[in-house]
């Protein structure tokens, strides 16, 4: 959709990595610091959208072979799945659990089922946002 744009492309190459790293940080830290599934997902989506804008759809599609509609659906299913898991354990739907574990490198670490739920949220957000942008920009 764009002509060759050297500056944008070379900046994007660097920036996308930074944005992706940052969004992963936001996502993982969401439990204790600002961030979480929505923000992490959205900024990941923003990074992907940036890729599309600077390199064009076809080129990116060659490299990221993924159906974002399915990604969104998988996200929703993960979220529902975590909810159902608590039903299986005899708790009301969507009861989250957390506990602390001693992991080899990280030391005492908190693992929460909320993180899985949040992953579902993030995937749904990425899938939907990219899907919307892609659909519109493909429409020629």
């Amino acid at each position, binding site marked *: 959709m764009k002509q060759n744009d050297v500056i944008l492309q070379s900046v994007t190459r660097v920036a996308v990595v930074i944005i992706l790293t940052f969004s992963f940080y936001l996502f993982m830290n969401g*439990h204790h610091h600002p961030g*979480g599934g929505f923000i992490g997902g959205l*900024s990941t989506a*923003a990074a992907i959208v940036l890729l599309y804008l600077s390199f064009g759809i076809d080129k990116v599609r060659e490299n990221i072979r993924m159906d974002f509609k399915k990604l*969104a659906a998988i996200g929703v299913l993960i979220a529902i799945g975590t909810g159902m898991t608590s039903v299986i354990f005899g708790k009301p739907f*969507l009861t*989250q659990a957390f506990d602390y574990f001693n992991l080899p490198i990280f030391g005492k670490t908190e693992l929460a089922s909320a993180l899985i739920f949040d992953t579902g949220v993030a995937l749904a*957000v990425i899938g939907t946002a990219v899907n*919307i942008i892609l659909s*519109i920009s493909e429409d020629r």
Partner: protein
Amino acid sequence: MNTIYLFIFLPFIFACIVPFLYKHLNRQVHTGWFVLVVPLSILIYLLRFIPAVSSGETFEYTFSWIPSFGIHITSYVDGLGLLFGLLISGVGALVILYSIFYMSKVREALHNFYIYLLMFMGAMLGLVFSDHMLAFYGFWELTSVSSFLLISYWYERKSSRQGAMKSMLITVFGGFGLLAGFIMLMMMADTYSIRELIANMEVIQGHSLFIPAMLCILLGAFTKSAQFPFSIWLPDAMEAPTPVSSYLHSATMVKAGIYLVARMTPVFGGSPVWFWLVSGVGIITLLYGSLTALRQTDLKPLLAYSTISQLGLIMSLLGIGSLAVYFGPGESGTVFTVATFAALFHLFNHSTFKGSLFMVVGIIDHETGRRDIRYLGGLMHVMPITFTIALVGGLSMAGLPPFNGFLSKEMFFAAVLDVSKAGVFGLNSIGTLFPIIAWVASILTFVYCMIFVFKTFGGKYHPERLNRKVHEAPIGMLIAPMVLGLLVLLIFFFPNVLGKYILTPALSAVLPMMTVSSYDLKISAWHGVNYELLMTIGVILLGGLLYMAKKRWLPAARKFPQNLTLNHFFNEGLSGAERWSASLTNRYMTGSLRHYLLYIFVFFVLLLMGSLLWFYGLRFDFSNNAMISVFDAGLVICMIISALTVLLAGNRIVAIVALGALGYMVSMFFVIFRAPDLALTQMVVETVTTVLFLLCFYHLPKLKKSMERLSFKWTNLFISIAVGLTVTVLGLSANGHKLFEPITSFFENSYKLAGAKNIVNAILVDFRGFDTMLEISVLTIAGLGVYVLIRQRSKRGKEHEAE
């Protein structure tokens, strides 16, 4: 023991697998064989309950769904539920077996058929085993929905669609009545549990809502069980495939209303209104059904009207039995206990003989291609086995020995004779009508049973009237009606086995106040010569004479004027209502979006401002205001400027950029308001939204200088200022009132409760996870909506190019 859920939900779970079975295996194996496993296993599972339930035990399994609202799904197994459960799974198994031979695996969309059938089975099982009234209501409506889908199974036919529509309209209308009745019951007894309701019946019986609740619930029961005058949907429902008619519209679904009346008897029984409505409507339906059945020439509507009449019989028996609640334990109470017992007995018998008769009609239809008795005749020699089954079913329905219908018909006569002598509720004066109507209706029943059997199978065989070569049905198709026919005979010879193990426990569920010893009931075929026997002999003699002389009166009876039928009134009423509502709607639905928005905004202003003034809600309190820094003030001014730019811009790109600027300034505010999560999200969302707008840029219309009339602009300005003022005043008074303590202190324990230091995130994923889950669902749906909107056009565009 949690398995009862599994067995209620087994049909639903299996329904999810059916499409795959159909897709991959249908060529080799008829899908019905797999589906057959479901009712069989449920039947076996339920049979295991019989010993315990017949010794008086009940089982209850509670699954808490939303414990904080007290919403539990309780399944409750007692005698009544078990009786129905056995009918549902037993007849279900036979019907599916029958359908394997009836429904062609080549031509029919079997996966749809079996999914709907399984859905119905699950709903019906859920219905009879639910203790929670709302769950009951949900399953009740689900049976209506699945019945709709099954009636319209051959949806290419107009009559199927109309029949489905009619049954849906009537049963769902009744369903709303049921819901209202349940809510009233809940308001009275403060519980949703039917058992607790029965335990609290003193509270309910004195309440002013007692009669309204009863009427609403009876509306539900009468529409579902096709009682007069709501019966008109049942004959039209016969457009469904015959296995469906046999299962839903004779053996199970139409008995849901009976079930409801039986369940509610402990609550409402003993009231004169209940007695008169249930037994009166029942006996009128009995007469109406048998009268109308006589006039039918098509076999399926004939059976439909006979079902209506038999349901009326059961209903009137339940009404008579409710007198037992009035009299209580004791001599006179016990007399009427027998009526309830007879109702349950006849319910079971009806399922056996009517199920087999429907299957016989299905066989005739399948083999000859005709269902009209004017074309049929003499099939006795061509289809001997089918004839035998039809004879057994037909004579049982007519109430002749040695078939089970005789036993319950005798008990019915005994009950109507008893009630004419009861001497309460004004029965002294018109009580004698009961035996008379019952007797007349039985004569008519006898005649139409004879017509059904002998007009089809007797007489001369006319092969030239049928457009195919007729022969006996395949053996697989005969198994199911044969099993039912055998049951008809077996129950006549061993009625007390059924009575002791299945009917008596069901009876004690309907009439829990009667002590067990008071209804140690024995069914016997011979009571000596008494009124009941004389009545039966009279039925046979008079019925036989009428049948012999049918050539004289039947053609006249068939010429009943069309525009006096209930159907005619229903159709007229429906089209009248449609016309009226269309003309009303067209007055304000002008097709202009602006008009609709104006309605919304004017209503918004009037409602909110009105209630603010009405309740003296205007109160401003500026004391809690935070300090305004220079930065804040500057930001506010910038925001107003950019919003005005959006408003006044004459150029698309300026408007879009100004909107983006507005969004970024909102995120600045979030920073000031100590909301880091929001600021981050808003920033990213604003970026993506702006990209979105710019992507659409090429496609978007240019912003034209609007050429509207001045009055148009002034109206808009006036409305928008009113809306803005309302919002401002509302926001200010909301801040001025602090009616409740903020609940945030609870969420501030998030580290202890959810292991999270970020309270906002803890609320999102943990405390209010349900909201978030639904939100991402909405998000995904919106995304798919965008995709579809665009894809649809590109496809259509391609088609245009191809042309």
